[in-house]
């Protein structure tokens, strides 16, 4: 537990000083204005909550990609990666609190987007089932922490992953059905989209906000299962990559 709390504390301190992390949070009001203006112009102010959630989800996903990707890179840059490998606590455990902190930071984005909708667009957000909404946010945060872990592992395994960071943003938003639900997309988007936890979490959000009368159990189980799979995959990748680094001594890149 002390390792978890230390990781949480360290990452919060880093993120609150890191311009790139703060920048993602500073951009939330802008993206909220973008989505809310688009929806307001179509005359569908009743769908404003979609714009708010889209701002939140895109922010928390971007944090996972960029901050998660930088987790190992920064350790390498500051020369602390090699000492981290020989500490009594495993790197995977040491990173646990840090990825949770990044995911929790995304919650600030949800508040920001909500404030923009209420203050500047005078929109009643109308959440029908607040407890389901809260549960979905918690589920998304846990899943996103797994995704952050995953991107950290990818960056440890691949020295040249940075050009691919861009490719993981908008395609993920489409596959997750972040704006329009997956059912309105063509089949070749729907099938891969259903293998991504985000699409199920967006279904839960739709039920919580009264836009859908669908079931809760199936999306909740699917989202939880896929989030767990992301965690297991990321954990395995990270441990394997670290063993390789320890075996080869390639601290600057596997």
């Amino acid at each position, binding site marked *: 537990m002390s390792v978890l709390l230390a990781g949480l504390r360290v990452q919060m301190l880093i993120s609150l000083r890191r311009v790139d992390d703060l920048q993602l949070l500073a951009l939330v009001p802008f993206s909220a*204005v973008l989505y809310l203006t688009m929806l307001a112009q*179509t005359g569908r102010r009743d769908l404003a909550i979609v714009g708010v959630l889209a701002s939140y989800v895109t922010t928390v996903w971007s944090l996972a990609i960029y901050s998660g990707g930088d987790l190992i890179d920064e350790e390498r840059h500051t020369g602390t990666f090699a000492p981290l490998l020989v500490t009594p606590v495993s790197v995977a455990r040491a990173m646990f609190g840090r990825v949770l902190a990044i995911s929790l930071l995304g919650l600030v984005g949800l508040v920001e987007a909500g404030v923009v909708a209420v203050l500047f667009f005078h929109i009643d957000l109308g959440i029908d089932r607040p407890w389901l909404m809260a549960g979905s946010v918690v589920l998304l945060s846990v899943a996103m922490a797994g995704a952050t872990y995953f991107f950290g592992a990818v960056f440890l395994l691949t020295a040249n992953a940075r*050009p691919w960071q861009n490719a993981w943003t908008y395609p993920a938003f489409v596959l997750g059905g972040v*704006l329009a639900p997956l059912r309105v997309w063509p089949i070749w988007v729907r099938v891969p989209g259903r293998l991504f936890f985000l699409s199920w979490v967006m279904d839960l959000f739709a039920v919580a906000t009264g836009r859908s009368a669908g079931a809760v159990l199936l999306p909740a189980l699917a989202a939880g299962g896929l989030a767990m799979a992301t965690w297991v995959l990321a954990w395995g990748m990270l441990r394997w990559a670290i063993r390789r680094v320890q075996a080869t001594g390639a601290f600057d890149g596997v």
Partner: protein
Amino acid sequence: MASDRLASDGPIDEPASLFATFRFAAVISWRDFRALYRWYTYVGGWLVRVLAQAAFLASVGLLVGSESVAHRIAIGAACASAATGALLAIPLATMERALGTAAVLVVSPAGLVPSMLGRAVDRLVDGGVMSTTALVAVFAYLPEVQLLRPSSLLLPVFAVAMAYSSTCLAMTLAGAALLWPDARNLISSTLTVPLTLLSGAVLPHEPTGRLALVSHLLPLGNGIRGCRELALGHAAGALLPLLGELLVGSAWLVAAIGSLRVAQSWATRRAGLV
């Protein structure tokens, strides 16, 4: 010899020498671009992203159940891809500070302006390629638009024109980013939303009133109108917006030169950019 033009004992203002510096910087920018990407990272990393970006923004139309809105936004978002690539000129300009060469450029005989503008040429190419790809994909996908007709040959011209105007806007703000490099990504990212909104790229309806005026003065605004004319098959109606886009781009180029001169003067007086 061309390289002799670069040698000087004092500030140079001869157009041929300034152009030689610009050309040299453009070659460096192109080599940097090629070092940053392989063809597969470019296609997989960038082009997939811009296509997904256009689809994602257009999905607002699917959300509200209006195909016409989705199609309109898809064209606008494909045009806005030009700015996605071009606005990266802002963080890339600050690379000179990270490399420690910005101060040298400030005191060089040609000054900061031609080398900085030359370093942004790759953004023009990048933005042009991204927007052309996205526009061709959108035109091919939309059932009511016919891609295979002569007027579609104007798509790359529009894409480059929009990349040109967006790059010039980016270079106007690159001067500020050079002075405050920590804000480089913030400046470029925050600029994206107002630009895509105020230019009318992602608006479901044509801007009216003051917003229409603003959209004419910003990069993308005229180009988007032209591309929407092309989608309707009106090649003649697209020519005036093309001219407008180029004029707006040139106005922003003048602003960029002014902004970089201010940055140079500030850096010279305060020994900044070190």
